[in-house]
């Protein structure tokens, strides 16, 4: 049997296929075609395979193994619930984001009927309920369970709150015929995050239930199980690159910036501990592999909101391009989301928007410092979030890096600036672009052949 693998990503706009030979550790080819979730998901796959054959002469049907991930049909849409917004609600949100979900809403404290109706209207793929540390508050999660149980919510529900009321919450949902999964508390003790068990349950539900609900089962015959949401595959690819395997050294702590049409995702694989001794750490502990999603920073669907940010930027203010023309083009982008820029003008606008998206998204992702002056004259600093100043590798992924010409310039926007010394972004990283959009493939391959996966991933990264 050959050791050739076909990796498929059912994206919201495009279905991407990558053919890889694990024996020679070569990427044999890549191709894409518009996604066809609404009709028959296999139409897009077949077209992408045709393109693969035309461009590289590779027959994807002959690959002995197939691995797939998906962010199509709206991605994995979740609503997360906790008690205090900055504590269990934040922990629940981080668990969902780290599982590759799109968090549509985060709710906290005792819900009222209006909020339950809002959840019904959102109709999420999964509802995650947390609240109370183990042995802590019981009242709020029980109240919320009783209010939600009779509601018109068909989504699977995950209970990841106070363990003292686990069975009670489970009974409340089960008695109303809800599909309930119980797992460990996302915050068993105050200030301690425990998101892995919840992430794993989310992935199980994704494979068992969501894929079927979204009509992907038609692809099952061809690609087997759809293993995970695409953002999780990217995060796993980033993790693999950073940490390496037993025999392959990783690249060390890194940051991946995925500038997409709808969102800009930032992944950091880093401890994020203070790099200076006089700094006191505050707030929730940060996940080693952390993902944040900026829903207002996208180059296509959210081009209009992104352009509003651009206009505040001094770099854009100094641009010589006619503002009227730019705004016309931005408007065009929001209506035609699969536009690939060709002219100098279009490339320049895309680059400026990507710079602003990277600048803001990394600032929101990275931690920040604030200073305190004590009466004795001492100054102390307080850090909230991750200190990424010592991160030495920044990787760009997404269309703008694949088609664009300005990878380095865009990624420079992710770095530490003297004018804003309290934002803890990387100080002197090397920049790489994921030229053929393979990070997701690396994440999927890591489930079957991690050693080959890291070598293939590293080889195709292009330093800029």
């Amino acid at each position, binding site marked *: 049997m050959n050791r050739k693998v076909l990796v498929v990503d059912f994206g919201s706009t495009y279905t991407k296929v990558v053919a890889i030979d694990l024996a020679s550790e070569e990427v044999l080819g890549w191709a894409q075609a518009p996604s066809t979730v609404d009709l028959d998901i296999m139409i897009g796959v077949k077209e992408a395979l045709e393109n693969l054959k035309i461009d590289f002469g590779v027959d994807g049907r002959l690959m002995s193994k197939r691995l797939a991930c998906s962010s199509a049909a709206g991605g994995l849409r979740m609503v997360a619930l906790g008690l205090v917004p900055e504590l269990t609600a934040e922990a629940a949100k981080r668990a969902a984001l780290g599982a590759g979900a799109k968090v549509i809403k985060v709710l906290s404290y005792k819900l009222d009927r209006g909020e339950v109706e809002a959840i019904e209207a959102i109709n999420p793929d999964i509802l995650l309920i947390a609240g109370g540390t183990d042995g*802590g508050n019981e009242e709020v999660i029980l109240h919320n369970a009783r209010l939600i149980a009779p509601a018109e919510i068909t989504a699977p529900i995950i209970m990841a709150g106070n363990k003292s009321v686990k069975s009670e919450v489970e009974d409340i949902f089960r008695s109303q015929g809800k599909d309930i999964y119980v797992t460990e508390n996302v915050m068993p003790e105050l200030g301690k995050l425990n998101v892995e068990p919840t992430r794993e349950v989310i992935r199980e539900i994704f494979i068992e239930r969501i894929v079927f609900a979204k009509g992907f089962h038609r692809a099952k015959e061809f690609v087997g199980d759809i293993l995970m949401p695409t953002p999780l595959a990217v995060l796993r690819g980033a993790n693999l690159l950073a940490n390496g395997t037993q025999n392959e050294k990783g690249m060390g702590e890194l940051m991946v910036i995925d500038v997409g049409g709808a969102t800009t995702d930032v992944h950091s694989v880093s401890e994020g501990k203070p790099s200076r001794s006089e700094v006191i750490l505050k707030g929730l502990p940060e996940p080693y592999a952390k993902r944040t999603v900026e829903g207002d920073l996208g180059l296509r669907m959210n081009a209009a909101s992104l352009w509003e940010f651009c206009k505040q930027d001094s770099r854009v203010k100094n641009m010589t391009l006619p503002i009227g023309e730019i705004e016309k083009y931005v408007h065009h982008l929001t209506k035609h989301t699969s536009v690939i820029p060709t002219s100098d003008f279009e490339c320049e606008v895309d680059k400026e928007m990507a710079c602003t998206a990277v600048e803001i998204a990394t600032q929101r992702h990275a931690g920040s410092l604030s200073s305190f002056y004590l009466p004795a004259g001492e100054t102390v600093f307080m850090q909230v979030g991750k200190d990424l100043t010592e991160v030495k590798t920044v990787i760009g992924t997404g269309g703008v890096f694949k088609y664009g010409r300005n990878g380095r310039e865009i990624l420079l926007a992710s770095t530490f600036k003297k004018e804003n010394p309290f934002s803890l972004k990387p100080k002197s990283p090397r920049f790489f672009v994921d030229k053929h959009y393979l990070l997701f493939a690396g994440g999927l391959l890591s489930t079957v052949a991690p050693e080959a996966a890291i070598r293939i991933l590293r080889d195709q990264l292009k330093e800029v």
Partner: protein
Amino acid sequence: MDRVTIILGVLQDIHNFGIRVLTYSLKKAGFNPIDIGALLTQEDFIKAAIETNAKAILVSSSYGHALIDCQGMREKCYESGMGNMILYIGGNLVVTKQNQSWGDVEEAFKQSGFNRVYPSDTTPAKVIEDLRHDLVLPQGQ
């Protein structure tokens, strides 16, 4: 019986030695103390207490500005549905005691809603005894 959860931390200030000693002693005495750290705001204490179902909040401050920092804490407890929360404060509470007797200092903090106020030479044993009394727990070993 479940151990009673107590929230401890340093309000606005960084001097956390007292809190660390107290956390150790409370644990030995059978409580579930949670040290939430330094440079805290009033809201940090209250939110931690909500999430953990804590029965008392112990505030430490040693930089002399506690009276300003503590204003409104009891009111915020009321707003958060924990109006009866037991609030203690201790440390080096005022910058200078030249014109103030300890009684005045204690009274000022009690006026702002604290159940008990401790000078810097208080022993953990005293705090534990008071907690058991105020929480109606049996006085232990």
